[in-house]
């Protein structure tokens, strides 16, 4: 690996999607160097030449301090703190490539709200398996790319068992008034909360499309919180983590009116309820439903809400039938 040659290390970002680009724009504008590694040569070119990324995040202008590259070795040489912001389906492959260029000095943090195939692993486990890095964490919370790019207030939590990882995350990413960064040691809790909040956003998409109304919607919120806390705890996390930024925070922002394209799980749920989601691209949050159901079963946790969403996605039940079945279950317990 090349070395940093005495310069202040840059923030590394893997993936020039909407979130990665928005984070790069924000950190670059705050005066930190950023290295953005993307496999898409045209996107890299556009960022380096035009300082824009029209296809991923229109209306954003990236500071000169942001440099994009197609070379992972450059990323590893210039950055010690690296944020992985790609979809869950490409995470393992990216991590494997990263594993060839990083070493024990690097700190790796992912911002992926889903589990990775084929065995529904938490992304921190994937990073641990695929790279020699040990200081690993996760970033999650209600920070939409559009908000970050527009400088609107947003907050996230960075979780890692290593205090130095969360300290470094705060040094680089706590950028008020736009982004406020909170810290936690509950890595499994934050990862599971982020995954589950994506999964449940599908249920709220369906519920709103069926026009269930505020009463049933409120009941659904409470059932979701109780169920998610059971699953989070069974996975080794703390139950209260779900009621923080990574869980409830994520869920509320992704199910709020007007979140548009940045809440793909919610949109998918709406389309499902209208009977028209089959041809759409499967977002991470929908994949999270299947993974969460498998996990809950493996851990012997009752998860009627997740099971109901999964049945609708698999075409085994209509949304209205799933909602009715769920209401019956709800009546049994509090």
């Amino acid at each position: 690996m090349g070395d940093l040659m005495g310069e202040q290390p840059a923030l590394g970002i893997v993936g020039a999607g909407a979130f990665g680009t928005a984070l790069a724009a924000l950190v670059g504008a705050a005066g930190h160097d950023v290295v953005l590694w993307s496999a898409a040569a045209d996107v890299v070119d556009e960022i380096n030449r035009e300082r824009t990324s029209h296809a991923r995040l229109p209306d954003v202008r990236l500071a000169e301090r942001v440099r994009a590259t197609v070379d992972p070795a450059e990323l590893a040489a210039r950055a010690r703190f690296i944020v992985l912001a790609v979809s869950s389906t490409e995470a393992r492959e990216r991590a494997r490539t990263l594993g060839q260029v990083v070493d024990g000095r690097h700190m790796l943090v992912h911002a992926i709200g889903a589990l990775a195939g084929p065995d529904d692993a938490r992304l921190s486990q994937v990073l641990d398996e695929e790279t020699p890095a040990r200081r690993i964490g996760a970033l999650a919370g209600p920070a939409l790319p559009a908000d970050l790019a527009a400088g609107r207030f947003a907050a996230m939590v960075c979780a890692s068992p290593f205090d130095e990882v969360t300290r470094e995350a705060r040094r680089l990413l706590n950028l008020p008034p736009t982004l406020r960064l909170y810290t936690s040691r509950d890595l499994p809790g934050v990862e599971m909360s982020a995954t589950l909040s994506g999964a449940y956003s599908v249920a709220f998409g369906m519920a709103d499309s069926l026009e269930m109304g505020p009463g049933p919607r409120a009941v659904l919120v409470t059932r979701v919180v109780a169920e998610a806390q059971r699953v989070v705890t069974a996975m080794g996390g703390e139950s209260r983590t779900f009621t923080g930024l990574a869980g409830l925070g994520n869920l509320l922002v992704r199910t709020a009116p007007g979140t548009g394209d940045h809440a793909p799980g919610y949109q998918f749920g709406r389309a499902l309820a209208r009977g028209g989601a089959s041809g759409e691209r499967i977002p991470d949050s929908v994949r999270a439903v299947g993974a969460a159901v498998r996990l809950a079963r493996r851990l012997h946790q009752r998860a009627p809400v997740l099971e109901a969403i999964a049945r609708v996605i698999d075409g085994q039940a209509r949304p209205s039938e799933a909602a009715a079945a769920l209401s019956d279950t709800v009546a049994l317990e509090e």
Partner: protein
Amino acid sequence: MSQSRPVAEAENRLVRFNSDRDAILSLVTRRVTDRYVIGAENSPDASLEYVLNDVAYAETQRHERASSASGKRQLSRWRDLAGRLGRLNEVEKRAELERLVEHYARDIVGNFNPRVYRFANDVLPPALSMLFTPVSSFRQGLAALDSMSRRIQVEGELEAVRTACDLGTLVVTPTHSSNMDSIVIGLALKLARLPPVTYGAGKNLFSNPLISYFMHNLGAYRVDRRLKFGLYKDVLKEYSTVLLEHGYHSLFFPGGTRCRSNVIERRLKLGLLGTGLAAFRNGVMAGAAHRRIYVVPTTINYRLVLEAETLVEDYLAETGKSRYIIEDDEFSRVGRIFEFVRKMLVHEGAVVIRFGRPIDPFGNAIDDAGESIDRYGRRIDPSSYLVAAGGQVDADEQREGVYTRRLGEELSAAFRRETVLMSTHLVARAVFDAVVDRTRVSDIYRLLRLPASAVVVDREDVCRRVDHLRQRVAAAPELGRVEDRASGMSAADLLDDALRALTTYHTYPVLETSGDRIKVGAMKLCYYYRNRTAHIGADEGAA
């Protein structure tokens, strides 16, 4: 493989201890004192007055019940310290702290006489076997030792361990089931042509003058489990760290005390384990990153455990609380340690010590050249894990705590992988499962209350289950391995082998045969031996 420090030289490391002793003591004293002084400067909650008061309070409590004259003298000394504390200035407090640290460090180190060491290293094992066996002469003692050595089978990654011991310092970390473990591991190291190790033995073992004499001179240091305050623990940890930095191979039982349930240990004590990482970090900070520390996961596998009865009683009473009703004691509780060797002599394949492949203090595997590697076999520089965000190597207690937890997880996985399952474990598991399936009772406290007629199972069924269990273990190396001897037998022979052992070894038969039926004679012991396979999940297909 480095030629600079061959095994023969490594074997002699303990001999040089006497010349290192003063340097080790003064380093331990200086480091611990400095750390407390800096801590006090940085936080009012860690003021020296609090630290000294904590020690004085704990020691006063401990000596309050003392009846001996020396105990009473100690009590008045500690009371005196507590009384003076408020009047001491910072310089005096520091001096008092230093005196205490040195006092505990000296208590831990004890005395070491290299001449006695040489004598002890050659003569102690036969002497011990004389102590433990009803033999009448030294010659017979030697013969007993020879037979005992043949009963101890050493296997595993011996070449890798020898390489690691040439290249660095070993931390041998065995599972812990019996009071005999430290003696057995000592013999095993000798049989494997590995160097002797130093280890912390409970201070109670030093109360017998003869054993104490030899313990000291085998390189054992004293751990006083009654001293539970932070200062003592820190002195102990620093002493272990400094020993490792000086290249003294060490032994810790990461399970802490003997495992009561016989389940392969999962919750490991990380305090002393972390001293391997601290020693490596100190080396890196002193510019000696090449001074490697290697942790050697080791399993001690007894076909029969001498203290099984008392251990499982302890376990059931502790976890069952009111649900465990202690019956009239049908077992003799008289200490029968002396029977250990004699019993070992009549039971073939008595104990297997298996040394696993060494790992680094971060839990990484090592290659044949002793270098740390990741899961893909890529070499890693272990010192890179100590580099802070600013680029410099530093000591970060929180970071090292997380690494050590990870090391503990790797160790407990290695314990399962390296466990050698013997006929007694396999048969006890098969019988236990058959009883559970037959009675539909799986709770141990209810099983213990079942009538004798309910705990009878078919021999054929047990054989079938044993075969199935052996196949499952063979297909999943992470679950352990079946002892060579046991895997070469038919299920029927293996069952007979286990029955022979389980009917004669304990004061009461664990299992008994009656025609083609097997009756559980002592459910708690059946449960104890079965527990060695508790990490292997229920098998739906076996019933």
